[in-house]
């Protein structure tokens, strides 16, 4: 069965770093519910208010650059972000997202292709995204198989648990 995620787009620019996604002053927090309260606070203090029931982030180049903090993924995941699509990702953020089961898709050209607030449907299996209103389709990079395996298990912990049993 195809893996489909549908949601409303919130758009961000290039080089959104982890200090903006999750400011360093909250790093001592460890409960995901508390961490979720500060999602994107460093770039958009109204982010949580702007979030829709199902939100998909679209960003430019180098999303998640900066520190290795996993809080940056935890905050998005627990705030309810369903997936992040970007022109490109910084490597540690990309790994952290997969490890925690947050789908991250690379899609060159995406910042031009979709408007803030539009409703989109992503087919991760086929690697395409369609804008519901216009019906236009955008190609995304397919998820590599070793990564898909981890995501399908729900993240690295369930994946490792399964492998050591």
């Amino acid at each position, binding site marked *: 069965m195809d893996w489909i995620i549908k949601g409303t787009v919130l758009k961000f620019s290039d080089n959104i770093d982890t200090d903006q996604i999750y400011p*360093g*002053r909250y790093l*001592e927090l460890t409960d995901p519910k508390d961490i979720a309260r500060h999602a994107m606070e*460093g770039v958009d203090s109204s982010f949580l208010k702007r979030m829709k029931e199902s939100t998909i982030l679209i960003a430019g180049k180098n999303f998640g650059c900066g520190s290795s903090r996993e809080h940056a993924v935890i905050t998005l995941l627990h705030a309810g972000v369903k997936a992040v699509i970007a022109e490109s990702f910084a*490597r540690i953020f990309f*790994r*952290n997202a997969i490890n925690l089961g947050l789908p991250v898709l690379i899609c060159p050209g995406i910042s031009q292709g979709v408007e803030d607030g539009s409703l989109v449907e992503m087919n991760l299996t086929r690697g395409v995204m369609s804008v519901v209103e216009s019906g236009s389709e955008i190609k995304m990079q397919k998820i590599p198989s070793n990564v898909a395996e981890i995501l399908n298990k729900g993240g690295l*912990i369930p994946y490792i648990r399964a492998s050591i049993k």
Partner: protein
Amino acid sequence: MHALEKILAKASGRKKVQAGDIVTVAVDVAGINDLYLQVLQSFTKIGLPKVWDPDKVVFFFDHYAPAPTIKSASNQKEMRDFANSQGIKHVFDINSGVCHQVLVEAGLSLPGKIVVITDSHSTTHGALGAFGTGVGATDQAAILATGQTWMMVPEIISMRIEGEIPKGVSAKDIVLKIVGELGPSVAAYKGVEYLGETVKQLPLAERMVLCNMAVELGAKTAYIQPNQQVLEYLDAYQKDYELFETDPGFKYQAEHVFDVENLKPQVALPHSIDNVVPVEESGKKRIHQAFIGTCTGGRLADIKAAAEILKGKRIADGTRLIIMPASTKVLMEAINKGYLQTLLEAGATFSAPGCGPCLGTHQGILAPGEACITTSSRNFPGRMGSTEAEVYVASPATVAASALKGYLCDPREWME
């Protein structure tokens, strides 16, 4: 093969690897700092009672040293208890310093080793010929369980640095110039090697600055072929390690050349690290706080540079100068050499070795409307406190000269 590829080949039990291969490597050093209680929570969820090898696990208490809040104190307490119960001996508590400096001083960062720390600046260890890379908490938890992690063999780009480094210019200025010209993602997913005649002569501390800030180019790892001085430094530890060298004719994915002969002191303006201009063109910007410290700019040579500029002088009224040696060892050396006295007399505030205000958690965070010049490596909005504060990143000499004048200031005037 490149030396970095040889390290990955050995760690994954292969004869040969090439860019794009996905390999599972055995980790030599798994470092966890005190931001990452999450590592232990994820490790507990995996459900194994013991870490794979307690001698290869290292704890650092540096980001909250000493703990500023009850929450961070509790996190540290849990981490100490875990280390104790697991028989982990390499525990660098709050009396040690910043992870990357401490690991090098302990002789645990060695050529040919896979060094994986829950910190993006783990690229620093390339200065010792190691494969250093940063990971998040869950990756590290999986390493604690299995001793292994998967990696894609990176493409490698080279930064050839040529020309004699002018007076008043340091590795920090060179790497700022590189980040300014090439941008923050030129090396995304890649390894960066610094090479060339100028690099060959660089002392270890300066090599560490270049490799440290490779992550500001997006790099996964960095490398400088160890020279005699680095190997002599390691002799003191009598450790086993294997030194790899890149095969002649290795093809870099891209090659960049920088002539530093006429380089001037550089500064990264708010709010991104690639927003770099020569200090002399930055327009006497008034600053409220100057900060010398961190894994980028808190070593002995950095404090020495500040002491030389500030000897017998006083910092400007209305400007604070916070100095935080990268480690207790650096602090002790600074005391022995008299730098501490000199700087205190000049009006500096010394604080405990550790990360301090670098990531905006404590010991000198910024109010809205304030500007800070710092020897650290990042100036994202809110990095050192308020998102309405401004952070300027420069060399230790530039930071010291700016503290003296109270505005952004080229240090060369005060350097003989």
